[in-house]
């Protein structure tokens, strides 16, 4: 009888400890207890920050696979409608940086997901075209992003992901202007 009670209380205690871990947002759990890196890598690079960050947020390279960066870097004369040409040396330095830190070369959990593309699909040249991005944003109503004057487009990560420039996309850091925190 006594041992049954001990077993029962052990199950109860284990349940109290384990259930919240299993049910909690895994981002939060791994960020707190750290098993391996959860998000995308923060890889500071002054040249990249200067050259690309002059016009837009310098997107962490771990948000796209190498084959996507390769296409983007081969068409800077028409870079989503803007001219973003670089001199040969800078172009090479930035291409090398992006290729060696791309999503498919990263061990970070979120990068691994950005790296997994549909086999039959085209190679995305926008982060927002990747299957993982679409999956993560499929519950966001259009009105809070493209219909929101303070956000305008899914391209402006840092409009809502307030730590995007630090390569953190955790749910707790999301704040949608005019709407508040996002909880799914």
């Amino acid at each position, binding site marked *: 009888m006594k041992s049954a009670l001990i077993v029962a209380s052990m199950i109860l205690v284990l349940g109290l400890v384990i259930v919240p871990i299993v049910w909690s947002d895994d981002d939060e759990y791994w960020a707190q207890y750290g098993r391996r890196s959860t998000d995308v890598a923060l890889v500071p690079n002054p040249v990249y920050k200067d050259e690309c960050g*002059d*016009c*837009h*947020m310098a997107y962490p390279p771990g948000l796209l696979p190498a084959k996507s960066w390769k296409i983007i870097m081969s068409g800077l*004369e028409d870079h*989503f*409608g*803007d*001219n*973003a*040409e*670089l*001199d040969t040396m800078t172009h090479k330095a930035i291409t090398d940086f992006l290729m060696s830190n791309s999503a498919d070369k990263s061990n970070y959990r979120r990068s691994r997901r950005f790296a997994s593309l549909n086999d039959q699909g085209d190679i995305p040249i926008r982060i927002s075209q990747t299957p993982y991005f679409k999956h993560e944003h499929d519950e966001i109503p259009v009105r809070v992003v493209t219909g929101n004057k303070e956000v*305008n487009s899914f*391209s*402006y990560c840092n409009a809502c992901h307030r730590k995007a420039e630090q390569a953190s996309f955790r749910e707790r850091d999301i704040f949608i202007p005019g709407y508040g925190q996002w909880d799914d």
Partner: protein
Amino acid sequence: MLWSKTIEGDERFPERSCTSCHTNKLKQEGKHIKTKKVIDPMAPSVNPDRLSSIREIRKWFKRNCKWTLGRECTPYEKANLLAYIKQQ
């Protein structure tokens, strides 16, 4: 003045001008027409960084002339633009 001249673009940006991003008030901040990122003032009187690096001048002339005019600026156009910005 080339700075405020409007040039015909394409369907994405039908009208293009230096002022599309930098505005006509060079002492004030501008805003990138597409990304909406704030651009520091062009006037050297309020932003001493402007016209301080030959590399930067070359880089931006090349990119921005091509976007705005669809071609590189001539040396004459560049000289005029530099003189105009310098006065601000």
